[in-house]
């Protein structure tokens, strides 16, 4: 069995997949950072129903 050199189109498709992958990874990191900022801000309050359960 012999392997043929990779077609240029495969490389282009790899570039596209890499772009999508990095965009999604960036989005996940961004949502995580946003969540941390929101939860640790001074005006953050737990939803009422949870506050009642704690009381």
């Amino acid at each position, binding site marked *: 069995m012999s392997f043929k050199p990779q*077609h240029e*189109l495969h490389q282009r*498709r790899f*570039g*596209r997949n890499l772009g999508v992958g990095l965009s999604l990874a960036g989005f996940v990191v*961004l949502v995580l950072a*946003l969540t941390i*900022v929101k939860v640790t*801000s001074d005006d953050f309050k737990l939803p009422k129903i949870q506050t009642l359960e704690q009381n």
Partner: protein
Amino acid sequence: MTRSQKTNGPKMSDASLHASTLREDEASFGDYFALLKPRVMSLVVFTALVGLLAAPVAVHPVIGFCAILFIAIGGGASGALNMWWDADIDKVMKRTKGRPIPAGKVEAGEALSLGLALSGMSVIMLALATNLMAGAFLAFTIFFYVVVYTMWLKRVTPQNIVIGGAAGAFPPVIGWIAATGTMSVEPWLMFALTFVWTPPHFWALALFMRNDYDDAGVPMLTVTHGRRTTRVHILVYTILLAILAVGTAFSGIGGPVYLAVSLVLNAMFLHGAWKIWRRDEDDSEADNFKVERSFFKLSLLYLFLHFGAILTEALLKPFGLGGW
């Protein structure tokens, strides 16, 4: 039949695999990114950033970054939807025929899917990251640009660019609302600045890219009312813009730096508009629209420096400078 043919259907060679699953002109990541109109997006990012930073409240850097990013993605999404709808005229115009859809790299349906998905994502994420009002304004801006301007007015009225300019003027308002959660006069002054700037900017382009709009059948003022009328309109709008731009210097977002920048730029812009008004077609043909071209270039600098001056005033305020 061999075992592989039984399991995989007709045997495929490398060549047939390529022919059946890969297109020679298959789009790259950059082609999809080009659907978002990156140059327009850069203007959206800058004006929205100025709106956000000029607001009289401190914004957490992560929230500020998210707000600008999602406004930019929303603007890009509306660009993709615009390319989907306008694919037929884009392939006729010299300026736009290299775009991904007329160039055959991306299917129109793909642009529609990408535009809708990014629109929904950007609106929801902006609302979650900042506030509901900012999300609602972004949704309205996308609706206005895609439905009101692209689908409806662009091919119907020569005032298309005047009304359509509103869509491009919303980002600083959204940036301000993202920061404050409330409305006031200042963001609407930034809106008005971009709104009144848009017609002379595009009409100057239409004067020297004249065949483009003629061929595409887009009712630009140059086509419907003639080039003389367009020159008059450029001058009138530039006078209105100068009054508005200099007047903004005395508002909450203005100050001495803004006033100095605005006076110089408006003097130059008025001079350019006056020269365009004085010329006839023979003069323009003789020097290949030199005055119109330089007016168009100046218009880009004009908007950038006005918003830059607003930003400077805002950044100076913490040091006891900036503003009156």
